[in-house]
């Protein structure tokens, strides 16, 4: 392996160089000869799909993994990074995608954790508070140092993470997918903060798969695909199409084609429903009403944590309603249609039998029993039916196997050992395909799909979107809960925007803009 040893001495124009990095895991090369060079004072984007190797590369930079090949240089000098302490000592800091904040601690305690000012081990919080307040004023990062993390907004949590880096005098700031949890307006604010930081001489690495944001804020961009280095481009001289081609490896259809919707009768109706919050004592869903008709996709848009999770729990029966009523049309066990009737107090199993399917938000928490085989996961919703269980309560292993083989074929679920593969050993995309196969094969009247494309690569996302449109075209109702504006704009026949537990807008997908949606999502606009 030839390492690049061109730049020697402290006067390098690069703050950090990762040269020819290769990191292997058993059975996979996560980083294959990757080079990333971050100039001083620039905003450098790192672009790639899920599984392209971005996270592994960052873990190498932070000493969580040791690369098999390649070197890391700081200011042109080769350095060895064995753990996060080494990275910290070199002035490298990171805002993680999932914040690393202790919820029961105050903002201040989180900022000083690990570098606590102290005398003989006793904390000197006043000294710390002064420095934090000074920093927050200097960079315009509004925070309350004494508030508990559990009580503050996601935006303030992110500012706490940024202050954590500044408190440590980090010179190299890494932002890992920082916009996923923010409204479009908050995103603009973050972009401005990043520009300020760069202007103060900080070097910024911005990890993202969102092309628009990269184009708007970055100076240069390095692209990874399937663990390989594809190239580094100057942002002013590139286009969205070129970047996406580099990321995916082919031209991408941004929109899955679909016909005009032909909505029929109402299949599902929510009437003034309220659901208690998991996080605090109040209500997460407040007095929400809407309906979904046959042959349409209704999408609930909104920033994460505005009550969508609890809304779905209430609809599917995972949590009881505080108040309000639910109605659904379905079918009985002989397949005869049942008109719209109240399901407010029905248990989960009965809703499922009536014709409700649920692709859950978290496939590992709810969607799969990871230690069960694929075939056992396929029958999770139907194992009790006579086709899988005999009258005496014994499982019919032959029918179960045949059914699994059928779904594997029909939905192209790939796994090492077919029906008997443990779900845990399957890739995320194929796990999701298995869940979709199970839920769709139930031929639901109402399909509740929560972020069905989360964590999937572009090809798989297209496949998931096609399935949802198929459901709609077959005359069923689809309720889609999504955080991705692109997904909302491409799939919905109707949009409901949720903000702080309420439906604040019904923008028409044909005429609305991302900006308008953003205003609704941020609570800045309501009908």
């Amino acid at each position, binding site marked *: 392996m030839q390492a690049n040893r061109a730049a020697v001495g402290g006067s390098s124009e690069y703050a950090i160089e990762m040269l020819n990095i290769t990191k292997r895991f058993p059975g996979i090369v996560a980083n294959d000869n990757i080079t990333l060079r971050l100039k001083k004072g620039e905003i450098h984007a790192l672009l790639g799909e899920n599984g392209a190797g971005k*996270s592994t590369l960052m*873990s190498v930079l*932070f000493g*969580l*993994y040791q690369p098999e090949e390649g070197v890391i240089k700081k200011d042109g000098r080769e350095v060895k990074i064995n*753990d*996060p*302490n080494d990275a*910290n000592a070199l002035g490298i800091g*990171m805002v*993680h995608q*999932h914040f*690393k*904040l*202790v*919820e*029961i*601690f105050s903002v201040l*305690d*989180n900022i000083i*954790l*690990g*570098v*606590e000012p*102290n005398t003989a*081990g*006793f*904390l000197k919080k006043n000294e710390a508070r002064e420095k934090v307040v000074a920093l927050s004023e200097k960079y315009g990062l509004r925070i309350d140092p004494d508030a508990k993390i559990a009580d503050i907004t996601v935006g303030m949590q992110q500012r706490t993470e940024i202050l*954590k880096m500044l408190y440590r005098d980090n010179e190299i700031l890494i932002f890992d997918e920082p916009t996923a949890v923010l409204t479009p307006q908050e995103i603009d604010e973050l972009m401005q903060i990043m520009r300020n930081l760069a202007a103060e001489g900080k070097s910024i690495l911005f990890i993202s798969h969102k092309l628009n944001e990269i184009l708007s804020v970055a100076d240069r961009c390095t692209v990874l695909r399937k663990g390989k280095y594809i190239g580094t481009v100057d942002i002013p001289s590139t286009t969205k199409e070129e970047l996406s081609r580099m990321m995916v490896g082919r031209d991408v259809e941004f929109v899955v084609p679909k016909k005009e919707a032909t909505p029929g009768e109402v299949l599902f109706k929510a009437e003034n429903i309220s659901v208690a919050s998991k996080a605090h004592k109040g209500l997460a869903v407040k007095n929400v009403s809407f309906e979904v008709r046959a042959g349409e996709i209704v999408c609930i848009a909104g920033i994460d944590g505005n009550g969508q999770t609890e809304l779905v729990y209430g609809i599917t029966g995972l949590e009881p309603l505080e108040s309000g009523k639910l109605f659904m049309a379905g079918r009985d066990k002989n397949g005869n249609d049942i008109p719209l009737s109240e399901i407010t107090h029905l248990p989960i199993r009965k809703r499922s039998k009536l014709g409700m399917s649920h692709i859950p938000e978290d496939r590992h928490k709810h969607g799969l029993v990871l230690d069960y085989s694929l075939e056992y996961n396929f029958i999770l919703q139907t194992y009790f039916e006579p086709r899988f269980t005999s009258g005496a309560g014994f499982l019919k292993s032959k029918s179960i196997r045949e059914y699994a083989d059928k779904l594997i074929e029909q939905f192209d679920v790939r796994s090492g050992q077919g029906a008997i593969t443990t779900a845990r050993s399957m890739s995320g995309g194929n796990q999701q395909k298995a869940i979709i196969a199970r839920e769709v094969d139930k031929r639901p009247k109402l399909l509740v799909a929560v972020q069905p494309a989360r964590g999937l690569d572009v090809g798989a996302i297209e496949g998931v979107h096609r399935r949802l449109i198929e459901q709609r075209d077959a005359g069923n109702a689809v309720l889609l809960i999504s955080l991705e504006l692109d997904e909302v704009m491409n799939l919905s026949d109707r949009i409901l925007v949720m903000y702080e537990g309420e439906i604040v807008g019904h923008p028409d997908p044909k005429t609305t803009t991302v900006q308008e949606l953003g205003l609704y999502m941020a609570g800045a606009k309501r009908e």
Partner: protein
Amino acid sequence: MQQVMLLIQYTLVYASVLTLVALGGCYSERSGIINIGLEGIMVMGALGGALVLGHISPELPGIVIFLLAVLAAMVFGMIFSLLLGVAAINFKADQTLAGTAMNMLGLALAIVIVKALNIAASGGSNNSAEIAYTATREKLLLAQGTEFSMFMVLTAIILIAAYILLYKTRFGLRLMACGEHPQAANSVGISVAKMRYAGVLISGALGGIGGLVYITAGVSKTNFEVGVAGFGFLALAVMIFGQWKPHRIVLAALLFGVFRALANVNSGFDFLAALNLPQPVYNMLPYIISLIVLAFTSKRSHAPKAEGIPYDKSTR
């Protein structure tokens, strides 16, 4: 009146035991390790303390006897608690299973050691699991004929120290971070394994001292075949009731202490005697109370978020 004094004394003795052991559990769980093995740790601590009390010369000054016994109990408890540390931290074993094994192991080991020593000392004629320490125990009492002992002073000191250590120092902040969000702690350079070992070792030390206090509560000899009668688990209930906070743990311990003390002195109270409850009811009382308390307090649990989950460095 005399009976009330006696009740107060026994309450304080048992509350001391429960406070110490529950604080131990608190430190372990705050670091992220569930310590079901406190019962075994107590037995081992009791063994260490009893060996000192049983073999040291009663002629020595009381404070020396006290310090040596406490030191032995601490060291025994800490060494034994390493079993949990190694299993839970290095090998990511099921913490409940490891703790349960420790309870059985602690008891069996203590019996084997005491019997082996008694057999060796008596040439085979005495194979009991008993150690007696009448004279040395008396030297630990603050006032002869009462249950007020140096252990109560020690408990008070440890309680205050435990509060300060947890809330006012760098160590406490880091320890709690490891129990709540080990990934966050690790990302700022804190060694989760080291902090968890610290938590487990502190629980070993405090559990060990708790065991020593238990076997000197109103008795001057102990039979290790009986163990510590579920006090390790009562302490866990005290810890849960105290919401993993030292200043609440002591209040919970006092409440449980009263009920345990009633088992010793109930016959002296006229109104209790009038109820004519059989003695086994009083013996059961602490366990029944703790079941009821748990039933009311477990729903909204303030347990450290990451407790019981082995920490994996590569988890994000």
